[in-house]
């Protein structure tokens, strides 16, 4: 059973990292929103899916590269409109209401996508120069999946890290995570910050969707497939934690990739088993802070 070759292992490791990059983008978007606003966005999976469909829509019109940017930006704007129209009225209520509201809107988004783009899976072609693999040390690396995707994710993560840690906006966001009320008293326009952060989080989901579009079949149940796994990643990594989302995403990406070698039927369960173990030994998640989310 364990007669695995080295190249099989490297293949799966690389696959796992690729998958992990997408997980990180989606989970970090959710986590940034969750950390600052204490809001769980059930429609986050729908934003991911809409990003993928917008990529499908725009790639033939404006080209591959611009389409990624357009898809991500449009989803970011959608997130900001969504937050100011629907989520803002709920801030004075307990967080469960936001979960319920965004569950309802997730149903609506899924049906809108079916209505606009149909039930059948659609695909986005990768440009030729990105589709061909390059060979390093005798191992083939598909350029798009293994190099381009990882590079884009690393760039985005760096930008988000810089935004959170090195800018005034980031200082306000971090202060707001600790005590939003106090920050508001200091004269900061918190609703504006919330909208901005929601937009950034949604943009990351949209970007992940656009980047995933050439790899996966795009279909209307993409949202519900991704949202629960995103929750699992956030739980494993720790709620509201930047490094937690990265660790959780990579860990689950790589582990489920190896699981597909060891025991294929259990691939889908990998993340959930990990979540169970984490719950037993460290309920706050790998990088979670005690008491941040009570």
């Amino acid at each position, binding site marked *: 059973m364990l007669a695995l070759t080295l190249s099989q292992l490297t293949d799966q490791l690389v696959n796992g990292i690729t998958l992990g990059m997408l997980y990180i983008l989606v989970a970090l978007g959710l986590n940034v929103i969750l950390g600052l606003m204490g809001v769980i966005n059930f429609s986050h999976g729908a934003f991911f899916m809409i990003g993928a469909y917008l990529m499908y829509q725009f790639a033939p019109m404006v080209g591959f590269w611009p389409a990624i940017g357009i898809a991500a930006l449009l989803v970011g704007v959608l997130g900001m409109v969504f937050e100011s129209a629907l989520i803002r009225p709920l801030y004075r209520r307990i967080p469960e*209401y936001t979960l319920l*509201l965004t569950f309802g809107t997730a149903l609506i988004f899924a049906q809108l996508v079916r209505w606009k783009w149909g039930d059948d899976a659609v695909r986005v072609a990768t440009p030729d120069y990105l589709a061909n693999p390059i060979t390093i040390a005798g191992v083939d690396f598909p350029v798009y999946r293994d190099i381009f995707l990882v590079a884009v994710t690393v760039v985005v993560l760096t930008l988000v890290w810089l935004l959170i840690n090195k800018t005034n906006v980031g200082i306000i966001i971090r202060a707001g995570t600790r005590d939003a009320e106090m920050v508001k008293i200091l004269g900061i326009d918190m609703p504006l910050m919330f909208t901005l952060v929601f937009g950034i989080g949604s943009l990351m989901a949209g970007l992940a969707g656009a980047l995933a579009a050439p790899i996966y079949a795009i279909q209307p149940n993409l949202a519900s497939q991704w949202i629960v796994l995103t929750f699992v990643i956030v739980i494993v990594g720790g709620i509201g934690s930047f490094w937690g989302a990265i660790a959780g995403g990579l860990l689950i990406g790589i582990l489920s990739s190896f699981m597909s070698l060891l025991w294929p039927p259990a691939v889908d369960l990998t993340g959930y088993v990990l979540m169970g173990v984490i719950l037993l030994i460290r309920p706050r998640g790998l990088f979670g802070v005690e008491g941040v989310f009570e």
Partner: protein
Amino acid sequence: MSRVLLHPLVWTAIVFAVLPFVAGANPFTGTGGFVDIATQMLIFALFASGFNLLLGHVGELSFGHAMFFAIGAYVTALDVKGYSFDLFGHTWTHVADNNMLVALVLALVAVLVLSVLLGRLIIPRSSGVYYSMITLAFAQVVFFIAFTWSDLTGGEDGLQSIPRPVMPGFDPAFFHDALHFYTFTAVVVFIGLALVYWLTVSPFGSVLHAIRENKVRARFLGYDVNKFRVNAFVLSALFPAVAGWLWTYFQQAINPDASSVGYSGNIVMMSMLGGVQTFFGPILGSIVYWELQNNISQLTKYWEAWIGAVFVVFVLLSPRGIMGVIENVRTRGIGRTTR
């Protein structure tokens, strides 16, 4: 006398008696009175009422209650169909059993064991939205197992052609009639709802309400808060198991969707639509949900969007649901919909 007549369970009985003649009513075509829709409404009323023990009475939102429904349904299906599969080098077989009461006991035991284990794992470690996410994730595990383990569960297609119910003392042909099955469902659901009602007005229910309003104070009063939360979790899981048992016989088929995010979410929507923190809320919610579903799905295949829209409007404008609206109209209060 009037106090007896106004008792919620009397109203429940009246609704159950009328329902098969009006369920699925369509104001535009004038049709209505579909017994099967009425049966659906009742099964989900029991499911939602059990779930609402948590949301309405402990104030905790479980987003994974469909797993208990699904397990109740699958255990029933496997018991009455029999199974044979290989695992760990041994062939496990079960000959089809034709007593529906045995199936009920097995379904309850399976859900009891699972809910005790899960409750003890999840509840001391989480609360709030974190708890919702974790329950959702565990329901997804049940979904994947049902989806993947084809030898036992039939995989994506699930288990089909499940025999009609057989109960000692009843002519087997009795349950073939839709109205007979409805009556049987109504009796079971009524007993279940009476138990729910009794639980919520019992001293146990009062402790749950205390926990809902203020966990810290409840603890200072000497109650073991987590123990009560686990017990409420287990109790609220048993009603969906009974609903799953009924559902298997009603549909004569079961598939992994029964444990999906969609099912868990529908139950939450029903409870919220009707109004949590009330006895009638989940019952009313289930009736309204299936009524809307039935009518809208005849007009458009995107009916889920409309149900989602109705739900969003209620969350935004009337978080206490239809019961909250009724209450407001009765007391002529304005602006009392927020908690």
